[in-house]
């Protein structure tokens, strides 16, 4: 066997040139830069065009504002009615936030109980599944019959829809700890509580945060839907009630204004839960790592 000399390469001076990139790397870097900008520019541009087109459709077809208002009018209504709308927004936010909070405590608590006892899981998970698969609009009327306080009723409805993804994901997460690490815990004689604290809860964290992202959106949906069912009356009326009310009075611009507030709230909730997930996992979890 002979070992061939590597072919001579043409002489090259590296002095004072800094890093030398090949064409492919250059192309990749340029693409990345462009994508970085496009990520923000494209959605904004498309959204602007859509709104502009909406405006044009109204103008070109001479549609009456009580059928389809122009975007400008919606914005104007939003500003003029801010007093009423913001009060309602606050209430919807309160219900959503509280429901989500209770869903987190309830979902995680129940998941921990399930992980401690298979029999508890067998006994109670059917209830959780039934609550989950039954549409909230069909349970809500009953809830408002049995529960005196409108606020508590709304909370309960929002909680029912928000809690399941947290329960299901956390339960799965608590079970998904690496089996060798579990053996290690046994070898080092960890007790039940240490096992949970040092192994199962950290393993479940990414799953829980995934559930939280879904639950945040669902809590808002639950809060809005429940209010439709609960209808008018009482104090403390949220955005859904404003939409209903404006509908009865044919205040279409106001309906749009309230609708926009709900949509923006949903986006903010999603962004917040995503940010929480990113901050909690960025040091170690694959989902939060940039490939470099």
């Amino acid at each position, binding site marked *: 066997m002979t070992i061939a000399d590597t072919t001579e390469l043409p002489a090259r001076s590296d002095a004072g040139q800094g890093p030398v990139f090949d064409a492919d790397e250059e192309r990749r870097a340029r693409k990345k830069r462009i994508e970085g900008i496009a990520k923000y520019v494209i959605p904004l541009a498309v959204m602007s065009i859509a709104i502009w087109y909406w405006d044009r459709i109204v103008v070109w077809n001479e549609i009456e504002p009580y059928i389809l208002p122009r975007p400008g009018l919606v914005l104007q209504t939003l500003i003029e009615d801010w007093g009423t709308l913001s009060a309602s927004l606050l209430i919807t936010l309160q219900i959503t936030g509280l429901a989500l909070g209770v869903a987190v405590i309830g979902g995680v608590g129940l998941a921990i109980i399930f992980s401690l006892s298979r029999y508890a899981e067998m006994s109670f998970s059917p209830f959780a599944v039934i609550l989950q698969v039954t549409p909230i609009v069909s349970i809500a009327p009953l809830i408002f019959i049995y529960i005196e306080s409108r606020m508590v009723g709304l909370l309960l409805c929002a909680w029912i829809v928000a809690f399941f993804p947290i329960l299901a994901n956390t339960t799965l997460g608590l079970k998904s700890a690496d089996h060798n690490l579990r053996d290690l*815990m046994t070898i080092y004689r960890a007790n039940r509580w240490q096992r949970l604290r040092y192994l199962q809860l950290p393993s479940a964290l990414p799953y829980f945060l995934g559930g939280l992202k879904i639950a945040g959106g669902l809590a808002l949906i639950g809060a809005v839907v429940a209010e439709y069912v609960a209808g008018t009356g009482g104090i403390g009326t949220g955005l859904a009630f404003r939409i209903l009310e404006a509908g009865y009075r044919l205040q279409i611009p106001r309906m749009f204004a309230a609708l926009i507030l709900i949509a923006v709230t949903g986006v903010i909730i999603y962004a917040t839960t995503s940010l929480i997930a990113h901050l909690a996992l960025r040091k170690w979890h694959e989902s939060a790592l940039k490939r470099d």
Partner: protein
Amino acid sequence: MSVAPLGQRAPILHMREIDKTFTGGVVALRRMSLEVNEGDFISLLGPSGCGKSTALRLIAGLMPPTLGRIEWEGGQGAGDLGVVFQEPTLMPWATVEQNVWLPFRLRGQSLASVREKIVEALALVGLEKFAKSYPRELSGGMKMRVSIARALVTRPRLILMDEPFAALDEITRQKLNDDLLSLKAKTGATVIFVTHSVFESVFLSDRILVMAARPGRVIREFQIDAPYPRGMEWRTAKEYGEIARETSDTLHGALAPEAAE
């Protein structure tokens, strides 16, 4: 730490006539007896499915034997056992230092109170600079070193290693084998090491138990007197080649069914 010559070492663990039959009827081990002495480096060598992992799991107390007894000389205390798995098995959410801290943490000891031991264990595997790193920042070989540091940190009487380097590339594997031996020389650790590789077992150990499958059992024990520390000169020694050949013959004799009868 110097270790007494083979045959003059104090026993630390006895496996007496161990049988393990799994539900479903698989006889994973039959009549396995083993005396582990202080300072032994024992390799369990055998084909897949011959019960090597089962033997380690029994010793680790992860499951009880069907028949027979496992006894620790003077009883087993917390931290008497260190384990290294085939995968590094680190907690990805914890730093290197926190991972090595685990055995102490589970006994309620604070990081500050055992930091010296952790630093020492990390220094033994050459990772003292990486105490604050997360596992994902380390290469496969480095993760394995962390795993070894964690197994060593309590200064256990016995370390169990189940094919720890099987998933690593050849170069890293040889380096880790060398390092394992220098660790053993420094700490006098007693090791039971599971491997598929004849050469690895001959290089590392002073006792090789060759096992056969169906039912899992020990068919022969080799004792190797070559002194530690062992290095390149042992890899090229004549005796090394002879023992490797004989071990390999025993192993393959056990694989051929008619020879086993």
